[in-house]
């Protein structure tokens, strides 16, 4: 058997028994799983790893209201907001801090609820998208998002707005690049970014004018 001659082959050839061939070649090729033989029996799942976990009491403020609940130590803030409190505006897009759909504010700081344990916010104040419109009036960011069509399917929108809110609270007069940087952690698959920029700059301007 000859060595693969492709210079950019990233694979560790010495562990492989088969040859990567170009189109049209005909050399024997057999793929195997390293470390075992063809047809090996492999076991997945360990029953002894499954241990029920106790519940903890948590008291926190959510959108201005004091809430008492119980949660497992491993429950995330996103899970508690959604599954327990049914505040489903905060979305779970990836559950591992890669997409920003779960963005909330904890004691004013922008955080990812999927990567924050519920127990971490015991005694603290959480603001979610549901807390932005008070008395039926939209927050200026929400109003601008509506006017500028900075949303399409809407799934990334709550997290996007929360990030923009955090941005404007720390930087009331951002330029376009600062807006882009401010929401660099929020993924949108529908492609709303250009209008999110526009809406945020518009809302910032209006909020400054309101004083």
């Amino acid at each position, binding site marked *: 058997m000859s060595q693969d001659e492709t210079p950019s082959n990233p694979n560790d050839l010495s562990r492989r028994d088969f040859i*990567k061939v170009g189109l049209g070649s005909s050399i024997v090729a057999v793929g195997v799983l390293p470390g075992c033989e063809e047809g090996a029996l492999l076991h*997945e799942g360990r029953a002894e790893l499954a241990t029920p976990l106790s519940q903890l009491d948590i008291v926190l403020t959510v959108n201005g209201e004091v809430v008492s609940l119980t949660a497992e130590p491993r429950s995330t803030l996103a899970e508690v907001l959604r599954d327990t409190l049914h505040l489903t505006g905060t979305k779970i897009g990836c559950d591992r801090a890669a997409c920003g759909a779960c963005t909330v504010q904890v004691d004013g700081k922008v955080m990812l609820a999927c990567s924050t344990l519920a127990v971490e916010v015991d005694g603290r104040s959480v603001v979610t998208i549901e807390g932005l419109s008070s008395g039926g009036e939209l927050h200026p960011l929400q109003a601008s998002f509506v006017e500028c069509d900075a949303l399409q399917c809407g799934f990334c929108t*709550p997290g996007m707005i929360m990030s923009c809110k955090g941005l404007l609270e720390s930087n009331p007069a951002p330029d376009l690049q600062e807006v882009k940087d401010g929401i660099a952690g929020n993924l949108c698959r529908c492609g709303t970014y*250009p209008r999110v920029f526009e809406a945020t700059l518009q809302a910032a301007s209006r909020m400054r004018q309101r004083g």
Partner: protein
Amino acid sequence: MADNVTQAGEPLVDRYSQRGDRDIIGTSVPRLDAIAKVTGAAKYTHDLYPTGVLHAVAVRSPYASATVITINDGVARTLPGVVEILTYPGKRIRYAGEEVAVVAAETLGQARDGARALEVEYEAYAAVVNIEDAISSGAPQVYDTKPNAGEPRVSTTGDVVQGFSQADVVYEADYRTQIQTHSPMETHAAVIHWHDFDHATVWIATQGIFSARDELATYHGVPPENIKVICDYIGGGFGSKIGIGTYGRMCSDLSRLSGRPVRLILDRKAEQLATGNRPNSIQHLKVGARSDGTLTAIELTGYATPGVGSGSGFGSAARGLYDCPNISTTEIAVYTNCGPAAAMRAPGHPQGVFSMEAAMDELAYELGLDPVEIRITNDPHKMRRAQLRLGAEKFGWAQRNPVPGGDSGPVKRGMGVATCTWVGGGTPGYQVKTTLHPDGRVLVQTGTQDIGTGCRTWIGMLVAEELGLPLEKIQVEIGHTDLPVGCFAGGSTTTPSMSPPSRESGQLAREALAEVVAPVFGGVPSQLTFQDGLVMADNGVSMTFEEACSYLDAPISLTGSRGDIAKVGRQISTGAHFAEVEVDVRTGKITVLRVLAVHDAGRILNRLTAESQVYGGVIMGMNYALFEERVMDVSQGLMLNANLEGYKIGGSRDIPEITPLLMDLASGGSYVGALGLGESPTIPTAAAIANAVRHAIGVRLTEIPMTPSRVLAALGTINRSPKYKMRRR
């Protein structure tokens, strides 16, 4: 500017509305559901928790090719909160991520515990996860009953041998495009409640409630009318949210077993592995042209893998992007032990346009022709020729450096162009119901899906236009199988399919109300005008719309089903993208500076949401050009980037200046004149960017995504044998 003719060649007379002008159609109107979305009030399938709901978590094979020998659920069943478990012993697994079991429990945490506690025994086999391995002799076969390489799908027009002999230049090269996953922000999800063994309510993130319903009904042997499917809000689909999938069947089975509602929400890893993808392609394309740029022959051969699934064609652009008398395409689908393909935004077209438009550019360079002009020479679509001229002018195409790679300094600019065609005419057969109430309320209902396109809003606008009302007075309900049958949201068919019945339902409602109130005016129904919230007679006497409705004894419902689109035949929507990029030859980084996206979507109904659709398509096309790529570990058969941090989707810092330019002529054949716009805007972007890169650095990348390392590799080959052949006669 384009001649004002329809595709059928008739003069474009604005046949719209009784007044001959439009108050609301064509303007920019915020979405009816915008407030629900920005406040978090919009309920997606993920957000539904029926009383007593169980949470379901699937167990998925970590092996690309295996048989499930046994599954021991003994311990799992004893865990607190675990209510039901379904296992599939004996199942033949063909890709890593395929389901082997599912656990339903009172809480999500308990379901995950249950899933972890399942002991699964697999017999693992060798697997193949790329085309080269799959087609090599002796490769493990994905399926026992058929070979990995399918029968070549051949399509021939004319005689390419003859055609190449007539060519003054022939350009041939190899191209590669990658696997792209849909990655909607909302993962696939189902919440299903069987009330008894014959009746169910199903909430599912789907682009087609009626097909989901029918599929589930067939699966369980229940009449479709016994199943209600609801999808009011959906977090994107891009073609992947069709049918009920294995996840839907599992969720449904769990509900029937437990007698309780069950929610099954896929995690992001499962979404990346198991819900679909755009197949890749390995193409060899040979194109011949005369010295005036006229194409004489196109020959495309190649492979694509739809994983364990189907639907991997890439030859449509070779066959139909430009006029050519001699065309031959040979496409071979190759099975691999990877997640199944699913239709993804303009299936087959971005792949084929990438190679065709590369060839067009190279022929232009060789012949000393302008890339825009060579395309116009071969373009049978009057509308698209107009788009190319208009776009070139607006983009400043004439300011392009005439020498590719001619910029001095390490950061080089380039401009590129590419075009597209897509079917835009929709299908007949759908219905929209408008109900007028005695208190003046107007309710419009149809069972279609708004997957982010904004159709909920323009459906209301079309009725508002007919009734002379502001949009706020119209309530629109969609996404429920109890409603009249509406279009499945895909194929860019929603707008052209739903706009005629929407308009007709408003028109019929207006006419019915006019019949009722005409006697009050002492006149004839046809003399009444509905405008600015009023109903007016010829003599200037008027009443408010609400007053007019008060003459109704009971609500009246009128159903529009106008199907004249069928009579017009197949309609094409065209587009052209112009891109400008900067390439830093030291780092290989490509920055897209701006994209001008010119499109024909017929009459634009809601300018605001139509432009958003173009932004979205361009951004997805840019991602396809630069970032996205499924990466497989060939030795383990695993997707290495089954998440959103390793599977790279462009973010805010990557966004160029994008200018949508909509032709806004009522070129569609229906009496609304609208065409679809969901897919065209994503087809030519990657090709335009690749052509811009070629122009910037003087050498062509024939593989996407154009990562910095691929750019540097391409730059390194300037002095080596190029991977293309240009023969001159």
